[in-house]
């Protein structure tokens, strides 16, 4: 190559004859090799990413799906009027109900032909300590049932549940005072007789959290409601504030040092760790404004602060992407600035704004750290809030905070629930992202 150019250095009119097109010269070969290498790096990066994703999903599914089933013991309990009246008169009412269930359980065992020399108290260990309460709740709710025999599906204890799910083995029970191998023999036979069964666990999805000794009763439902009210606050506040702020900054604000400063600060806020927003919320909303602690209203306010920069940045980006010719066209026919923005620019920017908002909301939904600081984590003993005001103001938790709470408890039965909670959380996030995609497709207009 070099010698041909040297030869014809002076001749401008007749360019040097290059080598044959059928031969690839060394420079081209190098460039092609570099391109092929780059493609390979890119492809392997994608594959590694996919592998991580698959590993993540597989772990979550394998650990979490078992939370959606729960072991129940089917027991017909005779609800004798005399016994129930005696129980209601005693101080610790559920212990009397326990005795009633215990007798019924013993009857079930003997009619199934299972012989055991265990005491009623020992047998009781196979059942959830919440079982007595659920029988009592039923009786109080249906006084007409007194005097009849009602068949209950009572929760088995978490050890029994764990045994059927393969989490608890006989070796584990050597040092366990709650259950021993003899119980498991009974469980095996009851399982064969269809009296002990695993079923789909609606209570996990709709129920409330339960105390440390009753993991089998714990559900994510109440914290789901907490999350719902928080998201309501975030949506109602951050969408109008964020969109209004971005329209002003993008379309109306004069370009000067002050607006530059605001712009830089908004970008910086987007990168501020969420726990900072948490401590800000603690100081501003709880200590200064005296809003109730642990309330979804406060959680929503804090998450609004956190979501605003995301919404503002994405809204400004989508406003910017509307071609200036549309603005000119509107101004050219005598539309005012505001008319041109609201009639023409905003509708075109809508898909981007909605996508940004939903992604911001999804982020807020999964956020845990700021909630720790305003007390939205912990055992929420109360059940479903009654009414909308209570939904905003009563102490509650949120899904990610509930998951965190379960993950740090000692009993492995809670660990399973943490994974199950993550599945539900991911389903919500996926739904939101799908909605974002659909909205984008639906509203996207071409010009």
């Amino acid at each position, binding site marked *: 190559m070099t010698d041909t150019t040297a030869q014809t250095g002076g001749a401008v009119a007749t360019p040097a004859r290059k080598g044959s097109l059928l031969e690839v010269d060394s420079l081209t070969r190098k460039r092609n090799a570099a391109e092929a290498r780059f493609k390979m790096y890119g492809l392997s990066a994608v594959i590694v990413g996919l592998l991580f994703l698959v590993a993540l999903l597989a772990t979550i599914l394998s650990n979490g799906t078992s939370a959606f089933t729960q072991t129940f013991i089917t027991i017909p309990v005779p609800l004798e009027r005399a016994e129930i009246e005696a129980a209601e008169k005693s101080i610790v009412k559920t212990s009397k109900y326990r005795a009633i269930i215990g007798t019924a359980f013993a009857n079930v065992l003997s009619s199934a032909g299972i012989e055991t020399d265990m005491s009623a108290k020992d047998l009781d260990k196979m059942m959830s300590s919440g079982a007595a309460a659920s029988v009592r709740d039923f009786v109080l709710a249906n006084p007409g049932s007194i005097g009849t025999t009602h068949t209950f599906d009572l929760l088995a204890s978490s050890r029994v549940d764990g045994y059927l799910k393969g989490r608890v083995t006989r070796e584990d029970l050597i040092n366990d005072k709650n259950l021993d191998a003899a119980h498991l023999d009974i469980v095996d036979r009851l399982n064969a007789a269809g009296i002990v069964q695993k079923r789909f666990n609606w209570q996990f999805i709709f129920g409330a959290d339960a105390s440390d000794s009753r993991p089998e009763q714990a559900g994510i439902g109440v914290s789901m409601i907490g999350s719902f009210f928080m998201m309501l606050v975030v949506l109602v506040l951050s969408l109008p504030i964020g969109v209004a702020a971005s329209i002003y900054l993008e379309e109306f604000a004069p*370009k000067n040092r002050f607006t530059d400063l605001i712009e830089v600060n908004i970008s910086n806020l987007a990168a501020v760790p969420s726990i900072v927003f948490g401590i800000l919320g603690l100081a501003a909303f709880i200590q200064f404004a005296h809003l109730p602690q642990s309330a979804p209203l406060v959680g929503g306010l804090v998450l609004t602060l956190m979501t605003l920069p995301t919404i503002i940045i994405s809204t400004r980006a989508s406003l910017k992407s509307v071609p200036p010719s549309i*603005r000119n*066209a509107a*101004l050219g*026919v*005598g*539309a005012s600035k505001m*008319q041109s923005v609201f009639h023409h620019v905003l509708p075109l920017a809508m898909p981007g704004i909605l996508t940004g908002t939903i992604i911001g909301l999804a982020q807020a939904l999964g956020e845990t750290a700021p909630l720790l600081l305003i007390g939205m984590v912990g055992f929420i003993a109360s059940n479903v809030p009654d009414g909308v005001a209570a939904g905003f103001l009563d102490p509650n938790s949120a899904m990610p905070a509930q998951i965190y709470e379960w993950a740090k408890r000692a009993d492995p039965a809670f660990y399973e629930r943490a994974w199950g909670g993550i599945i539900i959380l991911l389903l919500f996030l996926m739904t939101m992202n799908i909605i974002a995609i659909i909205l984008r497709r639906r509203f996207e207009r071409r010009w």
Partner: protein
Amino acid sequence: MNEMPVVDAEAGTLLPKISAKKVQVFYGETHAIKDVDLNIADRTVTAFIGPSGCGKSTFLRCLNRMNDTIDICRVEGDIRIDGEDIYDPKVDPVQLRAKVGMVFQKPNPFPKSIYDNIAYGPRIHGLSRSKADLDEIVANSLQKAGLYEEVKDRLDEPGTGLSGGQQQRLCIARAIAVSPEVILMDEPCSALDPIATAKIEELIDELRENYTIVIVTHSMQQAARVSQRTAFFHLGNLVEEGETKEIFTNPTDRRTQDYITGRFG
């Protein structure tokens, strides 16, 4: 070609539609328009020609204050339409732009139906009392823009689905719909093929009966074909202005001659 009553401003018999005196435009530090004095006659097509960057579009955008939308742009001097100073603080540019319509270089219909594209202006200016009124305005504007026959059966289809030339005529119809007195056209045919260009030029010639038209063009043939008067800009100066025939056959300035004979530009 030039039967309209174009009367020289100095003769004083007819006021010019637009008169500009000592107009200066600055983009930040750049002095884009220098001391331009120009009268534009009513019901005439005036062409602005000149090499790229000479300031002809900038000057055009002064006439409906579109330059207001550019932060760093500053306009000095005196521009009057019908004797009224359009840079007077009392003048609302929005009202001005209803009187001085504009057609842009690239066809820019709204991403809405053909009907809504045209109805938008009358709607925001409250020009129609009823739906029937509005229908009439839309039909009239399309007719004037010579587009009615082509689109009358698909007024609810998106304006962006039309061909380039049709889109540009739609934009002209949109400008006409708000009944302006002046129509500014910023290189309206530069994105169009020769046949679409011919149609637009024909249209401009018809519109001259009712409107004052100012057109910026890069094509000297186009200026010669459609305009009665031509202004030649160079490096921010208005070099020469006069009857189109005169400018093209007998320019007084050397620079004009060089430009129209293709020696630079």
